[in-house]
């Protein structure tokens, strides 16, 4: 037996977190710039973020923000798409453009000595995209082709079915971010170009730069690069949000005959990012399904052996977004796993979590904070979130205290508000013939079966 070192080491008290020093500056054109210098490695991450994303797409034009983002580097005033890819990659850099629900991002990774040239391209992509017809057609048909594949991918199919069921046909969150065959087919290049023009303004964007840069020297260079950018968008960019109207709780089975596993998605509409319940829900979610040792993963994986893993998360978009439990279980375990998840989600609001669980979750989050600031890409992303959601200067400095202030009562209270078991929608992508009988006997809700094709 082990002598001397058999007992676990005592952990010394936590040390204060070191966070990057951040400087903000508003350029003459109105663009907000956030810089975090770090000189340990000659790398830089830059993110130009527009405060507009797919949440502004009504379902009939789903995919508009997605395609608009993809079009940003498909031709600009100075470059064709091919030339632009060649320029950026010859610098050894990568430039990616993508839309999320709340933002559209141009993300650059580059070695510091090549930053100036790469930033010129980033500004070109942000300010002067030209939306060529042929590139638009290519992007659109590529996306439509990808959608035909997604019907055969159980995980994607489950996610889309869940979103449609929870948010319904009139809410942007009910349609896929990347659009549907129908919405994309009726989308024109003029729609996408107008969408971008109405949103691409200095006052609707910000730029985050993290890494091996000289902030003082950088600002004048940025003034030149973004000189003349209009501050306000020329048109009305408001989206108008519909209420979720998914039609209440239901159990939906998407039939894949012979499937060896069932993909499960169980959840309901959740709160916006700036909810007062954010920290209690963050801690509560860590206990429920946000860590390996969370209740659901331990139960469904380590105790029952039903799955390779189970987890939960709140999307925390500006305008809400779902709470979602996800797992894939072997077919025979489907109904029992659904039962367990529904019970565990509901229990969060009914009973206080144990102090041991609370302590572990808070420590997991607070002590883990430095790992979220390890790379320049991490830093740029974290700072971008603060700016996008308006979390305020000093947000990360106060983060540990906010997590530590969460109590068992505040977790139960917030959970009771947001994790209502009677409002859950259950989506199962699996073999209907095997799973439907058991799901009906659960009595969670009426079971609807659909074909997957």
């Amino acid at each position, binding site marked *: 037996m082990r002598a001397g070192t058999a007992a676990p080491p005592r952990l010394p008290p936590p040390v204060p977190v070191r966070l990057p020093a951040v400087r903000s500056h508003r350029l003459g054109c109105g663009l907000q710039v956030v810089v975090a210098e770090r000189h340990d490695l000659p790398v830089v991450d830059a993110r130009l973020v527009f405060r507009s994303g797919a949440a502004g797409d009504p379902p009939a034009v789903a995919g508009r923000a997605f395609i608009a983002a993809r079009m940003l580097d498909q031709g600009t005033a100075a470059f064709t798409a091919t030339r632009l890819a060649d320029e950026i990659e010859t610098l050894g850099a990568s430039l990616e453009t993508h839309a999320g629900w709340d933002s559209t991002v141009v993300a650059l990774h580059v070695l510091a000595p090549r930053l100036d040239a790469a930033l010129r391209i980033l500004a070109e992509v942000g300010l002067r995209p030209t939306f060529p017809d042929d590139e638009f057609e290519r992007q659109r048909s590529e996306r439509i082709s990808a959608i035909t594949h997604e019907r055969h991918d159980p995980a994607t199919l489950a996610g889309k079915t869940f979103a449609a069921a929870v948010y319904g046909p009139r809410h942007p969150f009910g349609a896929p971010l990347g659009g549907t065959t129908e919405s994309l087919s009726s989308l024109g290049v003029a729609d996408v170009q107008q969408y971008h023009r109405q949103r691409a303004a200095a006052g609707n964007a910000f730029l985050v730069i993290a890494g091996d840069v000289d902030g003082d020297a950088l600002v004048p260079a940025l003034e030149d690069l973004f000189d003349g950018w209009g501050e306000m968008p020329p048109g009305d960019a408001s989206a108008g949000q519909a209420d979720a109207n998914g039609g209440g709780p239901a159990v939906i089975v998407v039939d894949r005959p012979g499937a060896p596993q069932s993909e499960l998605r169980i959840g309901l509409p959740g709160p916006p990012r700036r909810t007062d319940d954010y920290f209690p829900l963050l801690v509560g979610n860590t206990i429920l399904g946000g860590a390996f*040792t969370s209740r659901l993963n331990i139960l469904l994986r380590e105790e029952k052996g039903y799955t390779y893993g189970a987890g939960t998360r709140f999307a925390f978009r500006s305008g809400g977004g779902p709470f979602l439990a996800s797992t894939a279980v072997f077919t025979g375990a489907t109904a029992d796993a659904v039962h367990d998840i529904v019970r565990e989600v509901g229990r969060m609001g009914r009973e206080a979590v144990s102090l041991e669980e609370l302590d572990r979750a808070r420590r997991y989050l607070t002590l883990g904070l430095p790992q979220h600031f390890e790379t320049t890409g991490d830093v740029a992303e974290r700072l971008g979130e603060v700016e996008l959601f308006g979390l305020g200067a000093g947000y990360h400095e106060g983060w540990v205290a906010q997590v530590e202030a969460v109590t068992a009562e505040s977790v139960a209270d917030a959970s009771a508000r947001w994790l209502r078991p009677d409002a859950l929608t259950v989506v199962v992508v699996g073999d209907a013939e095997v799973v439907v009988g058991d799901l009906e006997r659960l009595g969670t809700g009426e079971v609807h079966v659909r074909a997957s094709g």
Partner: protein
Amino acid sequence: MSARAAEAGAEIEFEEHSLENGLRVVLSRDDRSPVVAVNLWYNVGSRNERPGRTGFAHLFEHMMFQGSANVPEAGHFAFIEKAGGSLNGSTWLDRTNYFETLPAHYLDLGLWLESDRLGWLLPAMTQAKLDNQRDVVKNERRWRVDNQPYGDWDERLQAMMYPPDHPYHHSVIGSMEDLDAASLEDVEAFFRTYYAPNNAVLSLVGDFEPARALERVRRFFGDIPRGPAVPPIPGRTTLPPVLGAEVRDTVEQDISLARVYEAYRIPAYGTDGYYPALVAAYVLAFGRASLLYRTLVRDRQLAQDVVAYAFPIVVGASMMVSWATARQDVDVDELEVALSGQIEALATADDADIERAVALIETRHLLDLQTVDERADQLSMHATLFDDPGRINTELERMRSVTAAAVRSFAEQYLRRENRAVLRYVPHAGAGR
């Protein structure tokens, strides 16, 4: 270390030690962030499995998280998560690694947990734990392979590229039958054979004082006895440099987009001949200026996506794998001809294409080295596979010194019909959309 990389400040300093029980220890101080990465590579992977026990090395990795003499069941994860750490393990053809990243002043916790399962795993093993993790792994296989479009491609390609008596012939995840057959006796035998300090490398990277860290390593690992000599890798471990004849297979699946995989035998990872292959893969499919993206995705619109990479594996020969997913309604034969044609055309690639690939590799390499866990994993890898952790600093120069002529000559020699396996996935005949 090249002058350029040294100027760039990317040189990683480390020291190397060896305990009396054979454990190799690599220490690299890195105070950029108050964290520490604890990383162990065991020189055992699916290549060491015996017939009838495919998937066992990976199943065993799962058992390493089930507690040991002084760590309760599920305690490993609980201890680390309670300390704000992240952790995992992974099994591949040549190795099994275990790693956690912790606040730097909790280094002892990582060392205690890793040493307890290396020294005192077996007292905690039970049939119930094995049965549970067998179920978990079977679900992992269903999730990754059986319920996933194209999910069995690596299993199929390995079987096509390596002869039945070669240790890479079978997949890491293994077969359901072999997983069912695994017993508690297998767990014990595997542990006694491969999980010994003399078959492992421990790398620590982070904010610590190396002399003190070494003292802590000795304290926690020093009492673990050296194990017996590790048996050689079973089966045939040398291979002819090229396949000799094209190998083909076509699989019908419940998919709507066809996909073509092509694998080419290439020199083993770490040999001089490997690096032109690595650069070639970047020239082919890394970025949107790459050859395959430009031609198949952009210009001809035959493909939805393209991928190419060289496997970093060391026994006998490695492989470069490339795939292209067909656009809707594109004929699989047309896609295959176009893919092969572009890959073969690498033999006449422009210098500019190759220089661009090298620039991308350089950036990627430096970005990867930003995290302590990646640094630790690379140190462990180079120590385990090549007995030289210093390769973390010379690897970039190996890639940079690949000339355009070397890539073209590699392509001419290896990227040919008689050296490839072609695996095609097509929608079920008569399947609707």
